[in-house]
């Protein structure tokens, strides 16, 4: 097996796309990009203007609190230290947890404009996903039409913890149609912070964040995936690619095979489908982070094989506390995959999923 140093060199020599990079935007900063009365909502409430779950991410200081507050932060840490060639940024996960639809719609364009102005315009190798306020699918569609000509905006970031109804509902078809019309592919991303709104039992019943966070992203993504498949969203929008970020990969085989079984019996409840759920899911893309840590590494290898070299992508999730270094995935790839498959996972699939020229 290759040494640590050899593997680091191998990462430096490989093109890597990071499909999940978060910006750390303060309320005051995004306020510069929105109009009144919403500007004052962000700067003059006297309380925190955005809902927070209140959980302690950083374990009372045991884990360092990293942030991305400038394009230099992205370039220095991810591109330099982590050997990322193309970071795909997303500006916010907060929109679905806002009860005020008009505020969410205003912040949608504010966060997107901030990302373009402060990050994408500064570095040519950065790409971005446009945030959408799913509370107002019509406005979300208008936002995607507005951003359709931005070369570095390559997709839509849909925060998938919180939207109600679930994201395969026909209510969102107008948003998906705009995404398809503008060649903006879809990425879903769950959230531990919004989880209390979607599955309130968790915050009522769990005492420790480890319990909440272990389940949050996967539960939301399972609900989203089920809703998309059963409502036939990939049938309605065949030109859209669908990606799932930050839920790891262990849940994917389980969902493929459960949905297959259910569909065999209850096909009439999913009448738009033209093939098995598994076949649709195998056309989706899945980011590896947070990569599972099996006691026996071969079990993780087996999961990776089940998801497959045509579907798996890399993501760091930087700067969040459970981010992955590229090595965390590559240690499962470098000794087993040929160059072609390793390249697919580290950059090729992401390039396809979001239509990026590398």
């Amino acid at each position, binding site marked *: 097996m290759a040494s640590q140093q050899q593997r680091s060199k191998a990462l430096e020599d490989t093109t890597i796309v990071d499909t999940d990079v978060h910006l750390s935007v303060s309320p005051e900063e995004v306020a510069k990009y929105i109009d009144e009365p919403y500007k004052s909502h962000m700067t003059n409430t006297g309380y925190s203007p955005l809902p927070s779950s209140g959980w302690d991410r950083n374990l009372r*200081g*045991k884990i360092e609190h990293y942030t991305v507050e400038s394009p230099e932060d992205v370039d220095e840490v991810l591109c330099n230290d982590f050997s990322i060639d193309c970071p795909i940024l997303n500006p916010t996960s907060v929109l679905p947890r806002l009860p005020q639809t008009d505020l969410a719609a205003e912040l949608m364009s504010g966060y997107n404009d901030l990302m373009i102005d402060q990050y994408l315009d500064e570095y040519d190798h950065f790409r971005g996903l446009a945030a959408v306020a799913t509370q107002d699918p019509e406005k979300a569609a208008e936002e995607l039409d507005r951003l359709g000509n931005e070369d570095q905006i390559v997709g839509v970031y849909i925060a998938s913890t919180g939207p109600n109804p679930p994201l395969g509902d026909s209510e969102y078809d107008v948003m998906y149609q705009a995404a398809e019309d503008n060649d903006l592919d879809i990425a879903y991303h769950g959230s531990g912070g919004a989880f209390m709104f979607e599955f309130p039992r968790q915050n009522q019943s769990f005492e420790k964040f480890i319990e909440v966070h272990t389940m949050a992203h996967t539960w939301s993504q399972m609900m989203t995936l089920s809703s998309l498949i059963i409502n036939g969203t990939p049938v309605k929008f065949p030109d859209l690619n669908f990606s799932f970020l930050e839920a790891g990969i262990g849940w994917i085989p389980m969902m493929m095979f459960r949905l297959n079984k259910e569909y065999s019996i209850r096909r009439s409840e999913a009448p738009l489908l033209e093939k098995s759920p598994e076949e649709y899911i195998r056309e989706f893309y899945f980011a590896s982070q947070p990569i599972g840590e099996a006691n026996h590494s071969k079990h993780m290898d087996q999961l990776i094989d089940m998801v497959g070299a045509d579907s798996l992508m890399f993501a760091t999730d930087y700067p969040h506390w459970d981010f992955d*270094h590229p090595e965390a995935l590559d240690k499962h790839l470098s000794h087993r995959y040929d160059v072609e498959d390793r390249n697919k996972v580290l950059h090729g699939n992401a390039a396809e999923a979001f239509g990026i020229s590398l």
Partner: protein
Amino acid sequence: MSKHRVASVDEIEPGERIIVEIEGKEIGIFNIEGEYRAYLNWCAHQAGPTCEGNVTGTTQGEYNKNDGKVELDYCKQGEILNCPWHGWEYDLTSGECLSRQDVILPQYKVEENEGDIILSVA
């Protein structure tokens, strides 16, 4: 084996650390209540800079089967090194990882000699 003077004793007070680079290796040297320990600045998890992390205590729990209660103990204050990337906990006195029985930080011999701190690197 090569020996290196890395500091004088008054440059690493109890509770403090320094990180030096020797023969291409980053090594953290810690003073724990007058005892010195030296570890590679490299986390077994994802190669994070462990030696730059916060030094804290940790919480241990014990279940008393007789009264059915769990007793929590915040202990080892000043003896737990937390990797800044993901919080993996290591016992500073031994280098052992608290969550993984088979993981231990690579370590080096470090000793005091006539007011100097001497590190031995293989």
